[in-house]
């Protein structure tokens, strides 16, 4: 290896030296069993132009080999497990326990009515309150949720999309009441509406109105809450809906490009908002394809940002992402097999250079996981991190003919698909005309047909079955949770200043009707006056209308 290569030297003197100075590596020396040292970065014999063009050095354009120069030698990925609890009080108790245990970040799951902008007493919410996460109706619930949790010190990730602005506003007001300024808060809101229309389904408003809300959030946060990640552009759900790996990359990046363009059109500064864009991908079971997928996505995003938007600042071009293992691959049959699946998937994410990872639990196919299985899932990550050795060298799969071929192929196919979306009028048009959903559904259908026909083997499902009763465990939610939540909502509504509520909602409606107004301000005011989530979303429903979805 030509260690004296000038390009290498240049990288070592700059990116690498800077990183090592700021963040020393986890260990002084990384070694194999027996003492052989593990190289930080394995390289080809000759660092030619083709290598630099396609792979380059980690932490440098086109970021194929990772976004940091030392990757996991410097710091392991964040092991972040997402969980939801029924009420604000129960969640608060759990969060405080986790923080006492040294956790520094929280991840909040909301119930479906909250995600779709219904109050707990709405007829549509019946039976769903507190089911898949916490129910939030008014600021009062949010105050309980973060009671005694210092919002200047911890970062909070919230899986919320259509009503993201309302929940973010509540978070900001709770922080304010703690004496924490908006500029100090840290965290992420998912806020990725475009994928909701084609995959996840918790949309409320039509796409154009959603894009406006998102851009309003970008704009407000750039100026007021610069440490908050304003979106997590998610391929995870697209994949769960049945897309291929290539489609996952293509549609996710296409959504990303749409957000960037919309923000630019609204006059935002690329280098201010783009570094706050985060991504969220799925790790499925095809180990090598998945690892290549992450590398391809990183390179393609960097190239698209550079070529389409003339980005130059590294953090503007870097694709940083969270990964979750593929929930749809978990089987109800022989549930222990799922531990093995999750291991392979998690390994793919690490080999692909993820920034954070959620590993699913073995029993998650059918119900909320038990505590034991959650621990095993976390242990899986820790074994990969500390025992497997894959975290000790940067991008270990690079240079494998198969991996590089696959990386090139996925990048090219994804780019072709992105261009096709552009040709058909862009993402919003392709949501409306069904192109994206149709592509995903076709892929999902073919995949399932292959399983049904036995062409694709799923262990324990269509081969290697054992005689077992596949029983779905019963999850009964205490109906008292819903009653209590509704009672509290009624109480809050009875005690607040009704005139202020009326005024705030009227102001919000006026602002919504004017295309140029940023809705963060009236939403913050409404939240402060204890207007409920359902009331605020109701006003916006009235102005923007509701998206009805399409069948095929």
């Amino acid at each position: 290896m030509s260690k004296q290569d000038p390009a290498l030297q240049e990288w070592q003197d700059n990116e690498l030296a800077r990183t090592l100075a700021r963040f020393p590596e986890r260990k002084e020396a990384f070694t194999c069993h027996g003492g052989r040292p593990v190289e930080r970065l394995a390289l080809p014999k000759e660092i030619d132009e083709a290598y630099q063009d396609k792979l380059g050095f980690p932490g440098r354009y086109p970021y194929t080999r990772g976004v940091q120069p030392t990757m996991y030698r410097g710091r392991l990925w964040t092991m972040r497990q997402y969980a939801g609890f029924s009420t604000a009080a129960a969640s608060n108790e759990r969060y405080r326990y986790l923080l006492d245990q040294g956790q520094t970040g929280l991840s909040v799951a909301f119930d479906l009515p909250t995600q779709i902008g219904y109050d707990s007493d709405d007829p549509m919410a019946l039976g769903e309150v507190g089911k898949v996460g916490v129910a939030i109706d008014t600021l009062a619930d949010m105050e309980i949720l973060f009671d005694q949790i210092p919002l200047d010190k911890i970062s909070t990730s919230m899986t919320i999309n259509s009503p993201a602005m309302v929940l973010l506003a509540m978070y900001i007001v709770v922080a304010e009441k703690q004496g924490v300024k908006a500029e100090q808060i840290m965290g992420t809101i998912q806020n990725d509406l475009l994928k909701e229309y084609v995959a996840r389904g918790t949309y409320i408003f039509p796409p154009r109105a959603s894009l406006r809300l998102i851009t309003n959030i970008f704009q407000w946060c750039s100026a007021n809450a610069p440490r908050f990640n304003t979106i997590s552009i998610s391929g995870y759900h697209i994949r769960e809906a049945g897309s291929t790996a290539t489609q996952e990359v293509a549609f996710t990046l296409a959504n990303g490009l749409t957000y960037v363009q919309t923000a630019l059109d609204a006059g935002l500064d690329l280098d201010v908002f783009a570094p706050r864009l985060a991504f969220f991908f799925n790790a499925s079971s095809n180990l090598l394809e998945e690892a290549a997928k992450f590398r391809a996505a990183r390179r393609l995003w960097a190239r698209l940002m550079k070529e389409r938007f003339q980005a130059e600042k590294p953090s503007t071009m870097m694709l940083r992402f969270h990964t979750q293992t593929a929930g749809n691959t978990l089987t109800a049959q022989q549930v222990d097999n799922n531990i093995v699946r999750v291991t392979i998937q998690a390994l793919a994410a690490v080999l692909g250079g993820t920034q954070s990872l959620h590993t699913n639990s073995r029993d998650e196919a059918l119900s909320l996981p038990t505590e034991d299985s959650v621990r095993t899932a976390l242990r899986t990550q820790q074994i990969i991190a500390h025992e497997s050795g894959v975290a000790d060298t940067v991008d270990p799969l690079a240079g494998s003919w198969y991996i590089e071929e696959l990386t090139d192929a996925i990048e090219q196919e994804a780019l072709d698909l992105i261009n096709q979306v552009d040709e058909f009028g862009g993402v919003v048009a392709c949501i409306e005309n069904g192109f994206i959903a149709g592509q995903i559904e076709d892929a999902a259908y073919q995949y399932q047909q292959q399983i049904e026909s036995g062409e694709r083997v799923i262990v324990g499902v269509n081969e290697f079955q054992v005689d077992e009763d596949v029983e779905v465990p019963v999850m009964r939610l205490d109906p008292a949770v819903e009653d209590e939540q509704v009672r509290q909502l009624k109480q809050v509504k009875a005690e607040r200043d009704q005139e202020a509520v009326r005024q705030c909602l009227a102001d919000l409606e006026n602002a919504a009707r004017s295309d140029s107004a940023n809705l963060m301000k009236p939403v913050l005011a409404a939240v402060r006056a204890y207007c409920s989530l359902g009331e605020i979303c109701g006003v916006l429903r009235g102005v923007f209308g509701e998206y009805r979805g399409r069948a095929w």
Partner: protein
Amino acid sequence: MELYRILIGKPGLDGHDRGAKFIARALRDAGFEVIYTGIRRTPDEIAASAVQEDVAAVGLSSMSGAHARLFPAVLEALDKAGAKDIPVLGGGIIPAEDIPRLKKAGISSVFTPGTPVDTIINAFREACCQHHQQRC
């Protein structure tokens, strides 16, 4: 062979309709005319659609655990709409102990994860065939 019209409905708030759409397509490929209501439909909306479309059977899908309340609610809504005779089949993540209760309420077949698609298609065909024999 007779052409059967069926309606696939998705009551409740969960947006996971990969399963519902797969079944809809598989039924199409098995020669059914399939009307899909989309996600987040109320029982009344599903019943009204089933009546207007004069389907021979209704299939329901639920992944969020809301089946226990929502499947019987669809049966009630059909009854109210004077369409008690339309058979209703259901599938999704459904605990074993809920199955007898759903059947007692009038759900004619219940499918759980791992039910082969052919079993589901045959159940629909049988339900439709019986329904067509009754109609004038």
